């Protein structure tokens, strides 16, 4: 596997040199800034899915800064983030940990890309994961808080991948990667994965994803993921994410499904629901545990600014999430919260 990775990088490097003389596009600079207020009805930081987790506080998300440049067929993207959401809540530090005091690495994306032809491109570096529906950047999500599926899956994959577009409607990506969310491989290039994209009709795109290798929990696992969205008309959009992760010989892990119906009243005002069922598989035949979550979010856009008012109800019948009642001591099966986020994109 190491030899294949080395050969791919060599090929990639040679091709990149060949375009040094070609026409360059202007440097693109873009980014976003986000902040939020959250209030849990039981006055506790009950719902701990990634981001929007601080109770009764005007808190920070992150500032995200991205650079992109294209020269002929070669391009690069460098995207840095600063703040809780873009640092220790999602980005590992140099040692691979998530210690807020040590975290000095802020990289969301750092990769180079080369288009060998109109149909075939190769990419190498540290990239946002191809698994899942939701992403770290709040500017690219409809809901501000994130799903259990998002929080449990990979965030980034460092590696090298090739994508071949058979047509506008079908493409295939195959790649070799480090373990999840790591800048440096601790056990070599340990994972391989792929993504099949199909777009059967205009407005409907489906991604069938698979990744096998060392996961973020230290196990060798296989994750299969379906991410799809259908823009039915200018008002209605439906998204779906389903995933199954099996780890180790016992095949423990998780599975889940989330549905995302959205309705746009105008181009600037929309309402969307996320309904999710998430199941933790029992280890060594032990009992499974599940969580159900409903999140209703609004998107109100004014120029580059998007306000996201949101209510969320989570049901945890198996007491795996550590929800508490108002006294902060007695375990509770459910949690409810309201949040208001402001996301500015530029």
């Amino acid at each position, binding site marked *: 596997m190491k030899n294949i990775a080395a050969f791919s990088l060599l090929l990639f490097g040679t091709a990149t040199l060949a375009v040094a003389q070609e026409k360059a596009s*202007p440097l*693109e*600079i*873009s980014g*976003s800034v986000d902040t939020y207020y959250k209030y849990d009805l039981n006055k506790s930081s009950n719902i701990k899915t990634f981001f929007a987790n601080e109770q009764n506080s005007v808190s920070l998300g992150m500032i995200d800064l*991205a650079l*992109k440049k294209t020269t002929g067929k070669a391009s690069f*993207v460098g*995207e840095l983030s600063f703040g809780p959401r873009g640092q220790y809540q999602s980005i590992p530090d140099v040692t691979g940990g998530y210690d807020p005091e040590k975290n000095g690495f802020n990289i*969301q*994306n750092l*990769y180079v890309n080369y288009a060998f032809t109109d149909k075939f491109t190769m990419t190498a570096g540290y*990239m*946002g*994961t*191809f698994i899942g529906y939701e*992403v770290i*950047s709040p*500017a*690219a999500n409809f809901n501000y808080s994130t799903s259990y599926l998002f929080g449990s899956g990979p965030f980034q994959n460092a590696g090298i991948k090739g994508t071949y577009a058979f047509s506008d409607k079908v493409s295939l990506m195959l790649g070799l990667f480090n373990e999840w969310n790591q800048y440096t491989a601790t056990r070599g290039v340990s994972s391989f994965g792929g993504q099949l994209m199909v777009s059967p009709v*205009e*407005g409907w795109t489906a991604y069938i994803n698979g990744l096998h290798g060392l996961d973020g929990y230290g196990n060798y696992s296989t994750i299969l993921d379906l991410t799809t969205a259908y*823009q039915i*008309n*200018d008002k209605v*959009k439906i998204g779906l994410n389903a995933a199954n992760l099996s780890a180790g010989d016992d095949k423990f892990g998780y599975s889940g499904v989330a549905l995302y119906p959205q309705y746009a009243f*105008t*181009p*600037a*005002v929309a309402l969307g629901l996320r309904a999710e069922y998430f199941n933790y598989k029992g280890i060594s035949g032990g009992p499974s545990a599940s969580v159900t979550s409903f999140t209703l979010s609004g998107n109100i*856009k*004014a*120029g580059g600014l998007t306000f996201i008012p949101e209510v969320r109800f989570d049901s945890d019948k198996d007491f795996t999430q550590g929800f508490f009642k108002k006294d902060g001591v007695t375990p509770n099966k459910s949690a409810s919260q309201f949040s208001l986020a402001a996301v500015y*994109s*530029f």
Partner: protein
Amino acid sequence: MKVSILFLYLLCICSYLKAQDTELLPKDEAGKFIYYEVVKLHDLPLHTLKVRLLDFFAKNKVGLKSTKFQMTDSTFSASGKLIINKTMVVVSHPSGEVNYNFVLETKLDKYRFWLTDFKFIPYQKDRYGNFVPSTTVGVPLENEPAKFNAEQWKEYRSQTALYAASFAEKIKKHLADPVLKTSLPAEKKMVTKVW
């Protein structure tokens, strides 16, 4: 300090003048924005016009959706898109695209063409840091936006009008060009044996 103030002043003046110069596209009988022009052929045979038209679209693939080309004896139609760039003082990146339809008709000694059905599709940054369409259904440029998005919408209309005028000049020039380049320019060679 004085230089900075002078620079800012000039910047403001330039922005003001630019805003004054920008004209929106007129609307047709159906209330849609349209760029429309009738051009005399000046003894140019129709079949030559068609050859040059195809040559134009072959050489300007970027921004034109070649899959939707349609050509009959007297009508040529295609669809295309222009990228709307969000430009600030020092940064620029695509913020959306405007899709449109292009039609050209010929008649005896003249031809006419128009660009219409302008629809805006906003871009959104994806997980890899690239700007991509956030939807597949465009919003007609004729739609009146909400108050808080009015300035942005006005900018989309302005950029579309500028693009249409520039596109028209380009295609007219190409169709009237008496010499169409059919071969690549000769490669330059340095002779180093004699010096």
